[in-house]
């Protein structure tokens, strides 16, 4: 059970796509920094549909994206703070920062 940590936008980095190539059932993804923008791309949301997704509240609200990202349907998105981030790193067996 791995928490995959993505920090970069898919518009300039392959981190998320590589992570999706190697992700296993039971793993989760946390999107931070520009990686929160991933959820604005409908073609990427489809790829994430079966995976628990965490997004960091400060990074979403800094970008004014809260209402846009939390109303996305058909996908499990959990808006979390740093304390929950810490908890999730421990609930999973390891963290891979791509």
């Amino acid at each position, binding site marked *: 059970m791995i928490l995959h*940590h993505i*920090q970069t936008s898919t518009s300039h980095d392959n981190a998320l796509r590589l992570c999706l190539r190697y992700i296993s059932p039971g793993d989760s993804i946390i999107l*931070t*920094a520009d990686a929160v923008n991933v959820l604005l791309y409908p073609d990427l949301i489809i790829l994430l549909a079966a995976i628990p997704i965490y997004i*960091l509240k*400060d*990074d979403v609200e800094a970008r004014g994206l809260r209402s846009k990202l939390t109303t996305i349907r058909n996908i499990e998105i959990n808006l979390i*703070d*740093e*304390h929950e*981030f*810490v*908890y999730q*790193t*421990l609930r999973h067996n*390891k*963290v891979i*920062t791509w």
Partner: protein
Amino acid sequence: MNKFIVQVNGPAYGSTASIRALKFCQAATSAGHQVIKVFFYQDGVQNSNSLHCPASDEINLHQLWVEFSHSQQVPLINCVSAALRRGVLSEQDAEENNKSQWNSDSTFTMGGLGELVSGIEHADRLVCF
């Protein structure tokens, strides 16, 4: 209580990796966990540069790391070879390399990559930014 080692690869200014790492460390310690060390690698070594002079209405991440280290007794370790390559020197490094100036704050300790390896060995969890 769990033990974390946190690796920071982003500079103090130019990416948000460093501030996200700092917020993570603050959340971990406030929840009663231990951050056994923060290891600065790649461009992360720039965080130790005491010559950062942001405008007064901007955050000074270098200073925030120093304050965090002092208040929580968390060691800040710079990878010495990554630092020297980037012109980040402690007073001792300056002497050894015949440089008249240095910039790395003494709150940051210069160490080898072995510090990262031993930190990973002793921590419950590694989190990189």
